[in-house]
Each structure stands twice: as structure tokens, then as C-alpha cells.
């Protein structure tokens, strides 16, 4: 375990100082194409996702959970339930403009945990708030859309050559979160809706963590 975690922590420390990359402008025809691709990263309509989650915590501890997430991107609402593999619900929270914790078992009962969780889910599933301030290509040729989400924060949506994607959130130009999507032998439903089979989330900083989210089920819901 130590052998696996040390490179991961070193990686997290190294890239925690990363700054946002320079975006080179593109012709206007390509601009729309890139922005459409960036928009396509985020689900449209109501969905229910079930993920098997492997969490690597700062103390090098590993935890395994199941996550049930119901999202409504139009209304920006989230209902998230976290449970143990044996089915015990440890967190049940709603976001509808404000966070409501229906159920929380320590250490999942705190407001800070709920706030962090909802923030991560918003980054994964919802189109970034704020306007797109730059669209173009990175120095390695990948497509990037940059959104100014608040005064101090930006979100980059990066489209790779194989059509997979990465979302990066920067605060004061420092990288804080990375979400990397992986696509495998997807079903038609997942492929058509650009839903990744697996995602990795790296949270950087003093209380950094690493999440590996493996999709168990994706179900489109009626409005």
C-alpha cells in the first residue's frame, strides 16, 4: 500500500503548485466546435448515477463506498446518498440552492463534508457557472475551454485527442481539483450521453484526497 500511496502523494504535492496553462487562440469556425465539445462533457436532463468509490485519504487510509447521485442540471439540484458496501447509509444530503443533511453518521455528518461533497459533484456534473473567457488549444494541442466561475476561480474543460476529458479547477491560479474521465467498452447509453465508465478526482491542498469512481449504473430519469 505504501508503495502505491507515496508516488500518488508525491504526484499530488508536485502538481498542487501547477498553474493554469496558456491557451492559444483558434479560428472562429473551430471555436464553436471546441465549445460544443466542452458543453458535451456535462449530462443533459435528470440522471441517477451509482458509483463504486475508492477513496485514498490524507492519512494513506483507503475507504470503499457506494454513491447514489441524482442530478437535475437545469434546476442545479443534487441528491446524494453515500453508503457502505453492506448498504448502511452514512450520508444523505440534498442541494437545492442550500445544503440539507437528511442523515449523517460521523465522520460524514459535518457541514464541511457536505459542502465539499456537493462542490465536487457540481464540478463533475454541472456546466461551470460564469462565462467562457478563453477557448483554444494547449501547447500540446488539446482543446480547452476556460470559465471564470468567480473572482478568484477558473475551471478548465480539456478535451483530449481520444475524446476523453479532464476538468481542472484553479483558485488564485493554483490547481485545486482535477477530474479525469475514462471511457471503456461503453454501452450505447453511456456512449451516446458521453458518460464515463470511470472517473478519478484529485483534491489538492492540506486535506487532499483521491477518489476513484467506477460507474455501476447510469439511469436517465423522467422530468
Amino acid at each position, binding site marked *: 500500500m505504501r508503495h502505491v500511496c507515496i508516488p500518488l502523494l508525491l504526484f499530488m504535492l508536485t502538481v498542487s503548485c501547477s498553474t493554469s496553462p496558456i491557451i492559444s487562440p483558434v479560428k472562429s469556425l473551430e471555436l464553436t466546435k471546441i465549445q460544443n465539445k466542452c458543453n458535451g462533457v456535462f449530462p443533459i436532463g435528470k440522471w441517477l448515477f451509482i458509483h463504486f468509490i475508492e477513496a485514498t485519504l490524507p492519512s494513506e487510509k*483507503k475507504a470503499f463506498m457506494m454513491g447514489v447521485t441524482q442530478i437535475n442540471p437545469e434546476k442545479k439540484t443534487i441528491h446524494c*446518498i453515500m453508503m457502505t458496501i*453492506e448498504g448502511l447509509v452514512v450520508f444523505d444530503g440534498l442541494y437545492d440552492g442550500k445544503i440539507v443533511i437528511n442523515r449523517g453518521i460521523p465522520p460524514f455528518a459535518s457541514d464541511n463534508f457536505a459542502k465539499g461533497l456537493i462542490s465536487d459533484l457540481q464540478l463533475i456534473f454541472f456546466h461551470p457557472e460564469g462565462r467562457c473567457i478563453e477557448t483554444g488549444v494547449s501547447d500540446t494541442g488539446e482543446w480547452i475551454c476556460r470559465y471564470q466561475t468567480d473572482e478568484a476561480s477558473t475551471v478548465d474543460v480539456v478535451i483530449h485527442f481520444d475524446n476523453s476529458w479532464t476538468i481542472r479547477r484553479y483558485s488564485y491560479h493554483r490547481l485545486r481539483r482535477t477530474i479525469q474521465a475514462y471511457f471503456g467498452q461503453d454501452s450505447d447509453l453511456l456512449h451516446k450521453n458521453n458518460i464515463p465508465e470511470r472517473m478519478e478526482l484529485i483534491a489538492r491542498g492540506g486535506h487532499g484526497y483521491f477518489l476513484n469512481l467506477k460507474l455501476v449504473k447510469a439511469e436517465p430519469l423522467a422530468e
Partner: protein
Amino acid sequence: MARSLSIIILLIASYLCLGWADTLVGIQDKAGEIKSVTANFIQEKHLKILSKPLISKGTFYYQAPQSLRWEYTSPFQSILLIHNGNIKRYIKGRYGFKQDTAIELQAMQVVLQEITLWLRGRFNDNPNFNAVLESGPKIVLTPKEKSFAAIIQRIELMLSKQPGIIETVRIYENDTSYTKFMFNNVRLNKPLQDSIFQEVR
């Protein structure tokens, strides 16, 4: 003659089975004869936001007095081992089994250790729960502490007509959120090696 003999055997068998779950003491006595259990299980997680329950499947092995291997085979592979008072959980990832080093949830530990008590028929031995035998036969466990009741509202165990066997377990967090375990292919008192409860393989 053969028909009469069949009826007599059936009546004796019915009589033997009838009384086993009449009292908690009767259940404990009958369960005392069980040295090991191997069974397959289906776990259904019922939540208000799920249109269909979330299904997990696996196998468990129990050896008296307190060894348990609780193994999920789908939708992911996970093995939980309880032996000599130690609880360990392993999850299979892309690079083999990894140990869950954060298994510190007190409520879950209580439930897992509770399983080994149930299999011995000792429903009243856990200081956290009150046990009541209801018709069915069904045993209902309710938390004694209010703080624990906020985590688990109640546990219902449906007993099989076959002595010593639990058919289903329902763990209620509230009226709309519960986990149902259904057991099948139950084999009693089959010799089991100690390594089953100590090693991941």
C-alpha cells in the same frame, strides 16, 4: 404401508420443526447445534430515490463461535473477514485485492459482529439491542440507545421452518431506506478450513 410410513416420518419432522422457534431460548438451543454455515446471499438496497433496489450478490461462511467470511461477488468483489475479534475488509481493484483501512464505522462493526451472534441464536447477547420474538417466526431487534436508533431503526430476522436457519434479514434505517438480505443454498455443519476466515483467495 410405505404411504403410512411416509406420513409418520412427515409428522415427526413437522413436530421437530414446529417447536424450534417458539421461544428465544428454543432458538438458541437449536442454533447451538450449528457448527458452521455456508450460504449464498442476495442483498437488496431499497432507497426512496431508486426505482429498483440496488442488488449485490455473494457468499458467506460462518464457523462457531465467531468466525465469518462475508464475500461479495457482484457488482464488485469484496471480502470481509472476522476472526478472533479482528475485522478486515478487502476490495478487488484493477491490481488485485486492497485492504480497506478505514473500516472504523462503529455502527457497521456492531451489525457485522451481530451476524455471528444471530447465527448462534444469541439474539439477546448484544447490549445494543432488545430482541423480541414475533409470529412468522420473526425476531425484531430494536436499539436500546436513542443515539444508535438514529443510525439503525430496527432489524428484522425471518426464520426458516428448518431449525437454525435465517431466511431473510432486513436492516431498517428508516421506513423508506432499508437493506434486505436473502439467503439460499444453505449448507449446515460442513467442515470449513480456518484459512477461509484468515486469507483472501
